[in-house]
């Protein structure tokens, strides 16, 4: 075949079908828009972005902590700095995630086909709590031991103690640095892509009209 000839697209090819579906549902001007609707001009819409920024710092500081280990983050000044960076970026992550939740709740962000986006946000909140909980158990100090010893009864009472043992540091640490953060990150990416695919929800009654 001549290299200059255009290659005919095979409609039956799954790569072509996937590409067309992406073009249809998520064109680049939706994914990376230049301008936003007038109603997005409010600080309430910044809470979600700050949550993402905090998550980036959580992951970056977490990678450093995982690489260097507990001895380092307890004993060296730089280690304690990264330990604090990890802790306080998590605090900001949760504070701004809840502020984002309040904003979306009061503007009913699930309207006009955005129910799945809202539901994934709820799941992110739940998985984030579990990630933070296993993080508290992974500190390797008296605080983490106190939390583990007290939490074990709650876990046993809830019926999950057989496969979720809060006294097992290896299990909690593995969940905290591998499985759960990957889950949170994938869900956050999915959440953002879904927001970009449909755009930001219109305010309720933006110009004195009827509710829709």
């Amino acid at each position, binding site marked *: 075949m001549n290299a200059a000839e255009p290659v005919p697209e095979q409609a039956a090819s799954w790569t072509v079908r996937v590409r067309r579906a992406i073009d249809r549902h998520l064109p680049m001007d*939706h994914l990376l*828009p230049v*301008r*936003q*609707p*007038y109603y*997005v*001009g*409010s*600080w*309430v819409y*910044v*809470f979600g972005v700050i949550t993402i920024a905090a998550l980036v710092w959580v992951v970056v500081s977490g990678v450093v902590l995982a690489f260097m280990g507990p001895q380092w983050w307890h004993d060296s000044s730089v280690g304690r700095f990264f330990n604090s960076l990890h802790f306080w970026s998590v605090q900001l992550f949760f*504070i701004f995630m*809840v*502020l984002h939740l*309040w*904003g979306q709740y009061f503007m009913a962000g699930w309207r*006009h086909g955005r129910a799945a986006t809202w539901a994934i946000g709820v799941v992110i909140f739940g998985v984030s709590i579990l990630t933070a909980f296993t993080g508290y158990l992974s500190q390797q100090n008296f605080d983490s031991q106190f939390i583990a010893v007290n939490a074990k009864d709650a876990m046993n009472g809830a019926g999950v103690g057989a496969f979720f043992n809060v006294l097992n540091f290896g299990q909690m640490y593995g969940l905290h640095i591998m499985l759960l953060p990957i889950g949170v990150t994938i869900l956050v990416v999915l959440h953002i892509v879904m927001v970009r695919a*449909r*755009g930001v929800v*219109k305010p309720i009654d933006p110009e004195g009209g009827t509710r829709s």
Partner: protein
Amino acid sequence: MDSPTTYFHWGFILISVPNLLVIAGMIVLFAIALVAPFPHGGEGEDERR
């Protein structure tokens, strides 16, 4: 720093003062975000539903 924190106790509500301050700060921040003017808030072209 090592001493136990104080708690706010009102009826069935029992919460540590630091946690109460965080929640109060979040409510204040949310209120400010609603009323504070946003820079460059021009009309956009993206009108998707």
